[in-house]
Structure formats: C-alpha cells, structure tokens
C-alpha cells in the first residue's frame, strides 16, 4: 500500500496542475487578507471590528476559514483529476490490471487525498501566519503576548476541523467522479450538490423548528463551520452559536467520510472497467 501511495504522491508532484493550484491557494490568501486590509485602511468608524480578523489571535479565524473555502475548492479539483483522469487516460485499466486488488488501488487514492488535505491545511496555516504577521504589524504591534495554552487548543481544533472539512469534500468529489467515470462530470456533480445543500440549509435555517430544521445539522456544510472560531477573547466575525458543537460536527463529518469511502469502494469494486 505504501508503494501505491508513494506513486500517487509522485504523480501529483509531476503534474503542473498541483503547482498551479498551490499558487491559487497562496494568491487567494493574499487577496483575502489584503482586500480586507484595504477595507480597514479606507474605513475609520468601525476600525477595531474590521481590523480584528487581520490581527492575532483573531487572524486564525480568517486563516482557517479561508483555508476551508479555498482549500476545499482546490482539493475537490485535485481529487477529481487524480481519480477522473485515470478514466479519461485509460490508466485505471493499466493500474488495476497490474495491482489486481481494487481496494488497494482506491485505498491508495483515498490515503493520498488525506495526505493532500493535511498538506493544504499546513500550507494554508504557514501562508496565513506569514500574511497575518504582516497585517498585525501594520495595524498595531506584533508581539507574542496573544500566545496562550488555550490558543494552541483552538488552533489544534481549527487545524483538525479544516483538514476534516477538506477530506470530506474531497471524498464526496471522489465518489461523484467514480460514479460518473469522469473528472469534469464529478466536479459538476459536486457543484450541483453544493448548490442544493446550500439552498436546503438556508431554507431549513429560517424555519422555526421541526424535523426539516434538524436535518441541516446533519449535513456537511453547517458542520464544517463548527471548527473555525476562537473559544475565548478577541473580536470575531463568526457566530458559532448558530452552528453545531465540535463533537457533533466531528462525528457527523466522520460518518459522511465513512459513507463516501464505503460507497466509492463498493461502486469501484462492483463495476466493470471498460475502455
């Protein structure tokens, strides 16, 4: 299995799209932070409220929420190409014919997606911290006073939640790609699902109560918001009280992960691989 995972990572390193998407990730971080910074600079009345997300420790909210948004987009595209292009290039036949055991082949793909989710989260954190150091210094004073023990706990939760968010979305994309046997069809289906879920979540959030409202707390997106906020102190743009608790969100997202992996493996095992 480790050989197959290494092969997957080797292929990723050799693809141009990996580096293009990495550049997009860094570019989007710069865009989010510096557009926000421009907004703060051009406004004086709400200076503190607007400036807080650009300064430590609140900046971690913005770092991880940006990582979730942009990272998800990037990992979904990567996951779709990693799995889907094997169909369009026909290499899935070559690989499966040689490996013979399909779970091993798909297991390596799944593990490489998990590794990619971690890598994207780490890169996002590094890029975010570098940019936030700059914005913190520009808007006030850069010191290490904000570092507390509870902050490490918050960062750990946000980091884990972001990696989990990226993973669950990548696995959903993988399932769609396997279903459609095409990268683009998989991306299209993923976008379609996102729209439907968004509409449903908005509708159910506006309801007074009832089972429809409770369903939204078991969907993917509302649970991904549970991780990205500081527990204490600082100003925050986020409203965690609207979202499920961290434990609930973790359990729900892990269940979705298990379902997507199970469905992908079942489909891949059952279906013929034709030219």
């Amino acid at each position, binding site marked *: 299995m480790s*050989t*197959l995972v*290494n*092969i997957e990572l*080797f*292929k990723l390193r*050799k*693809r*141009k799209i990996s580096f293009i998407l990495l550049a997009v990730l860094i570019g989007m971080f710069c865009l989010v932070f510096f557009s926000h910074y421009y907004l703060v600079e051009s406004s004086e009345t709400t200076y503190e409220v607007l400036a807080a997300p650009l300064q430590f420790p609140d900046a971690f909210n913005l770092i991880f929420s940006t990582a979730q948004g942009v990272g998800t987009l990037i990992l979904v595209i990567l996951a779709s190409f990693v799995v889907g292009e094997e169909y369009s*290039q*026909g*290499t*899935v*036949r*070559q*690989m*499966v*014919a*040689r*490996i*013979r055991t399909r779970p091993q082949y798909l297991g390596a793909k799944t593990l490489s997606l998990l590794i990619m989710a971690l890598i994207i989260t780490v890169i996002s954190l590094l890029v975010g911290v570098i940019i936030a150091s700059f914005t913190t210094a520009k808007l006030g004073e850069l010191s290490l006073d904000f570092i507390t023990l509870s902050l490490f706990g918050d960062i750990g939760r946000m980091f884990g939640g972001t990696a989990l968010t990226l993973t669950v979305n990548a696995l959903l994309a993988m399932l769609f790609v396997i279903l459609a046997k095409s990268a683009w069809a998989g991306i299209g289906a993923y976008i379609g699902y996102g729209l439907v879920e968004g509409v449903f979540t908005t509708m159910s959030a506006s309801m007074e109560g009832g089972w429809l409202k409770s369903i939204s707390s078991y969907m993917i997106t509302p649970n991904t918001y549970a991780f990205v906020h500081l527990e204490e102190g600082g100003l925050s743009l986020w409203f965690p009280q609207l979202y499920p608790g961290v434990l609930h969100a973790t359990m729900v997202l892990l269940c979705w992960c298990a379902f997507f992996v199970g469905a992908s493996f079942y489909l891949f095992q059952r279906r*013929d*691989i*034709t*030219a």
Partner: protein
Amino acid sequence: MTVLKTEHLTKRFKKIVAVSDLNLQIEEGEVFGFLGPNGSGKSTTIGMVLGLIAPTHGRIELFGRDIKDDLSSVWPRVGVAMENPPFYPYLSGWDNLKIFSQILGDNAGARMEEVLDTVKLSSRARDKFGTYSQGMKQRLALAYALLSDPRFLILDEPTNGLDPVGMREMRELILRLKEEGKTIFLSSHLLSEVEQVCDHIGIVKEGRLVTQGRVDDLTSEIGLEKLFLKAIEEG
C-alpha cells in the same frame, strides 16, 4: 502446460452478449492469434482475463489457477500491452515504467533500460509520453509488458496505428519473443500480421468462437484471408 484456459466464458452487458460460451486453451510456447472484426468481443475477453470485467458466466485459468483465486504467484509471469496504450501523458516514458516497475517489484526496475533498448525507445525515454507518436506509445506498451520478464504476453492490437516500418519492427520483435519461448496471446484484426507470427488462431464473431486450430492446418487449403471471411460469413 496450459497457460490460459477459458471455459464457457460469457459476458453480457444488459441485453448485449459481448462474449458467448468462449472456450480457449493456450499451451506454453504457443503464439495464439485471436482474430475477429471490430466489436467481436476480443477486448472484452482480454478485459475478463485481466480482471477488469467480471464474467457473467464461466471461468478463466492462468497457469492452472482460477483467476478468482490469489494470483500473486502467477500474475508477475504475465505481461500485458493494452490497446491504445494507457500511460500518464505528463510523465516521461521512463517515469511511467518506473511507476509500474515499483508495483511489479522484484527486479523489474533493473530491467527498465534493457526493455527500453529492446523496443528501441532508450533515446526518447526521458520525453513525456504525451509527446510520443503512436508507434512510440505502442513500443512503450511492449516495454512495459516485458518489464517483469514474463512467460506469457497478452498483446491487444499491438500494431494499431503503426506505419509499415513500425509494423515490421513490431512483428520482428514478436517473432524474437517467440524464439525466446514466450507464450503470446495476440489480439488483432490484421490477418497478415497474425499469419506471419502465430502458430495457432481462434476466430471470434459476435463473441462466439467460430474457428480454432493450428494456422498450418486451417490454412492448408485456403489462405487465412479466405478462411477468416468464410468463418465470419458462415459463423
């Protein structure tokens, strides 16, 4: 020793019967030509042998073992060159072989230079697969098939898209492999190619085997082209 044996092999795709009650037997050292018009079920049969397509009915044996069993001991003895060689276009020929040599293990990696020399692709091995001509792609597919020094080679339309020079080179290569004692299963619709390299043939039509036997015996009275057309028309 029987290298490949199929018994009542059948594959249905919904209402379409792609392969019907196919019984093949290939002995060690044979070069078996698997002939048939386009859409006759040749690639589906190979797909079933490779484990890519699940048979609806029947069984397949490789080196005396059912392919549903653990094939880890016999599978490295099988080399496959697929139709429309499927490799990663953004990787070089060398990197593509490297990936598959890692899966094959043993000394496959050490054989990379040797097999690239054999198929005369060493000078372009570092170029991306996506830049290769069809002939070079076919040669890389054959290099991949030879990586594990297999005893049994499955070649699916290996001369597809080759120019006359490329076809001759491929034919000479197959004959050389035959002289080395390798068993070869050659799927093709090019009669001249099959006639020149194969000692046994099977002709399929609409998934059914309509003729099977030694080339010399089957073509003693009429040429292969006539035999093929007769089998297709009457079958």
